[in-house]
């Protein structure tokens, strides 16, 4: 049980929490937040990988790029959620059942 394993476990728990958020909450923005939570864990994994393999600078560049992507995802997610709010007057994901087989 060294530091690496502890950090890995904590990261995995964060991802589980993020997925839980995606599946079990009904608020559109909250789902976007869930994505961000999972992304935090991924950022941690990347830096940890850089430390383990001795390429911390490389992993830092990865983290920076991921952050940019993360922000854009947040923007698009929020924008779509707001658009849906304008249509439905609510942010409940259970409204999204118009499209089905």
């Amino acid at each position, binding site marked *: 049980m060294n530091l690496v394993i502890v950090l890995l476990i904590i990261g995995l728990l964060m991802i589980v929490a*993020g997925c839980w958020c995606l599946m079990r909450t009904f608020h559109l923005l909250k789902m976007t937040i869930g994505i961000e939570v999972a992304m935090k864990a*991924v950022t941690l994994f990347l830096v940890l990988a850089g430390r383990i*393999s*001795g390429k911390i600078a490389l992993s830092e560049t990865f983290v920076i790029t991921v952050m940019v992507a993360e922000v854009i995802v947040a923007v698009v997610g929020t924008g*779509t959620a707001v658009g849906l709010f304008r249509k*439905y007057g609510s942010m409940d994901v259970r409204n999204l059942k118009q*499209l089905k087989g």
Partner: protein
Amino acid sequence: MTILSICAHGFIYGPILVVLIYNLFNHEFARKHFFWFAGTGAVWQILAAIGGFTALNQNGQTSYAFGAFWDIRLAGAAFFELNATRFLLLLIVGLVALISVLVAHQTVDFNRSSYTNLLMILVLGMNGMLLVTDLFSLYVFLEVTGLCCFIMIAMFRSRADLEGSFKYLILSELSGIFILTAIAFLMMKTGSLRYADLAGLGQRISAGSGQLEDLLVYAALILLISGFAIKTGVVPFHSWLPDAYQSADTAVSILLSGAVNKVAGVYGLMIVMQLFGDVAPVGPSLAAVGIISIIIGALLAVRQPQYKRVVAYSSVSQMGYILLALSTGTTLGLVAALAHILSHTAFKSTLFTNAAALQEQTGTLELKDLGGLENQMPVTAFTSIIAFLSTAGIPPTAGFWSKILIILALWQAGSPVLAGVALVAGILSSAYLIRLQRTVFFGQTRPELAKVREVRGSVLTAEVLLTVITLGLGLLYPYILLLLHAGGIL
């Protein structure tokens, strides 16, 4: 500057240049003439793909490495690389973009300038995915591709558009998390994410070594396959796909089915297969996903109430075929997958273009409201039948040859059972397509559709162009088979 270098840089600079120039003009002008800008971008992509490939062949090279604005000779510098496979996929991207523009010319109305910008960024994202030589860069461009798609679906802002977009976004981000986690796990073992450094990793790890990193590599492979499978839209990762395809404007649906899920999904799996094909469970998991996808996708397609939804589920089913071909890991399998990607692009784009024509002329795509349009819309009906033949794999068309290749590849790789199932599942594809044809084009013309006329202009052009490609490929494939035979692959 050689032709090859111009073409290669064109893939990177072309779309950006179009975006920059396009936004220099005032809004009204840009809105009015979006067709020419986006069309130029798409045509340029096609020309660059063909010209570049020709130049590459003339030089006798198999691949060509280059950097966009940097010198790749510096130690550790990133670089882009072109080879035959990538040229083919780049050509497909260009072709699909062109078809999309042709359709958008009639279907997209109030947000044409956004459409143009996003189309070009999407093309850039896909070009990037195809050109990079590093797994992380692949992820970055994958994210670009995905984000463009979400916005393109959502920008029409009906309830369905936003809903489809949001579902796609959530599932896509899940795949992004999977892929990034996998990247981090891989990096723990190798410290580098270049394809060259990752290749052969399967030989260096073993499940029984007792090392954490080795186990994490296997976990990474699971996550990579799942992540790209979500992007491909194969059962059981497929659920977003019909919703997104159905809700999006048809011009965008064409992009999604024709290029995005092939470049973002199948190409990713292709890379996985290339780098980690020697890890025992990778091929079988792809095959399992593929075969489930073929059958369940077709079964689901049979009962869908809406034209584009049927076609979307058909896409799920066809992606299964491509995965099945990839799962063999042989050269023939790769060729078969590429062939089917090409055929699928042609016939699926035709079906979506027909959807655009129907939507434009009748105003609906619900199957219960359509019927007997054969006489009113002869060209659409005919092209749709050709596409149907190609989907079901019936001889004079492209789909027949690529399906034959897939079955041959499976047979050669020693899985005759899968080959048999793939063959029999073809009947299911005919089932849903016959239903589609019968409901939409044959039978009694509904009185409210009596005044419907054939679509005109660019959509008609797109339909005819795609049908010519489908039939032309059908004639060309035997020649390709001969080449393969001569090359000892078949």
